[in-house]
């Protein structure tokens, strides 16, 4: 033991301020990468989910789309990433593609649910006013589906924050890189600090989206 015995790094405690102090640049870099990967993946997921859901509804393929989404969702992330690597290589693109696929499964469900939830008489009224398909979609259906879509966006974001950690497989897992390193070398402070940051990140993202939701749907609040 000796002179270092009082050092929380050496004692390997779960909570260790010295860890945070000496590794602050690692933690910042990991957090930044985590935020980047999550944001890019969820935004691409949303950008794909919206048109996909709209098209699927027009072609009456919603059930097929949801079934496919379920299948993708159940593919374990370790297996999915290993299967993707031959196509996409070892860049962070692999992680983003995997995360987009997973976020799609959640987003699609909610976009479809939101659009389905628009009452038939509202649609009729809009058509009666001479709204075409596109105008109906943009000015009636999407705004009415917005609360459900935003809700899905929040779940997708939080889930993606968690899933990003698996990117450690190709060295692009943000905080997951630290968690994996800590698990492998029995470094408790590293595992706990990175895990807590991960959850905190999810809390902040969830609250931010809540604010966005309130701003975008001021009418929803006055109803409840």
């Amino acid at each position: 033991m000796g002179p270092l015995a009082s050092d929380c790094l050496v004692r390997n405690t779960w909570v260790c301020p010295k860890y945070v102090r000496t590794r602050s640049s690692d933690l910042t870099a990991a957090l930044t990468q985590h935020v980047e990967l999550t944001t890019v993946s969820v935004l691409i997921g949303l950008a794909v989910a919206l048109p996909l859901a709209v098209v699927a509804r027009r072609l009456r393929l919603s059930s097929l789309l949801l079934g496919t989404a379920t299948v993708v969702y159940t593919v374990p992330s370790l297996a999915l990433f290993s299967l993707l690597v031959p196509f996409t290589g070892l860049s962070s693109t692999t992680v983003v593609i995997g995360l987009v696929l997973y976020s799609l499964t959640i987003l699609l469900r909610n976009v479809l649910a939101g659009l389905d939830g628009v009452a038939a008489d509202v649609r009729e009224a809009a058509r009666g006013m001479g709204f075409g398909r596109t105008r109906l979609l943009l000015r009636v259906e999407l705004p009415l589906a917005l609360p459900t879509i935003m809700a899905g966006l929040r779940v997708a974001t939080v889930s993606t924050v968690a899933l990003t950690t698996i990117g450690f497989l190709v060295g692009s897992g943000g905080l997951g890189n630290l968690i994996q390193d800590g698990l492998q070398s029995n470094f408790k402070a590293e595992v706990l600090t990175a895990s807590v940051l991960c959850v905190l990140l999810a809390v902040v993202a969830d609250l931010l989206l809540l604010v966005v939701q309130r701003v975008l749907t001021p009418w929803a609040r006055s109803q409840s």
Partner: protein
Amino acid sequence: MRAKRMLSLVAALAAVVLLAAACGGDSNKLKTDNNGSGGGAGKHVVIGSAGFTEINLMAAMYQLLLEKAGYSTSIKVVANRELYEPALEKGQINVVPDYAATMAEFLNVKKNGPNAKPVSSNDKDQTVAALNKLAEPLGLKALDPAQAVDQNAFAATTANAKKNGANLSDWNGQKVVLAATPECPDRPFCQPGLKNTYGITVTKLLPLGFGTAQVKKALTDNKAQLGLVGTTDATLASMGLVIIKDDKGLQEADNLVPVVGKGFTSDTTMADTLNKLAGVLTTDDLAQMDKKVDGERQKPADVAKAYLQSKGLL
């Protein structure tokens, strides 16, 4: 109003996506400028690392040495051999520190299927020769192996080591539960080796991996009596575990060796640079460095630098 808001949301989204796509390259590479002092001037080398302590240390040493030789470098962490070996072939990764026998058997299984006859032995040079025979057709090449070796080993609790003996041959006739990788029953050094070389019968295999937290937990809970770990694992002592000595030399020559990939197999500057390290690195050096990282929690890059300086290589 709503339509306008909707449109601006869509526009903002599109902008962000485009932006993301534009900077979608690898932002996590630690690019460094080269100082252009040696034969490697101008070339960029991507060093692969499997991401655990010992390999992180090796990768950090490769980085320091190669930069001194005039290369610019970056380290790419890839957790599994299944993922980084193909990247070596494609040139996405240029050099990776690996274990000679394990890599040889990996390529062997890849070429000849899961039941392939083993090509490695406990002889370092033979093993590296076998490795190179398999590596060459793939465009890979192993450089000189170091003296330093981190072999597969079987750990037990200190209590069980006291009871059954400190050498594996003392365990002759024992029936044990073994915590190891799922493929252990197929690997000559693993379950069959315990039976044939040491007369130890594995009654049950717990598929918990190689040196994972789960393997160690199974041992401390006495759910397993032997567990598969690495000989330089610096976390064992703090958990009340010891390695039972492989006194009959069952284990293969898992010496640390740089495996070079596409585009660098005939790069003599790189070979000379990394071979210098192979010439000095001993198992004890490696174990000491592992201990500094996993016990004292120093940073791998700092430990690597201090070691290379102490050997006059920097």
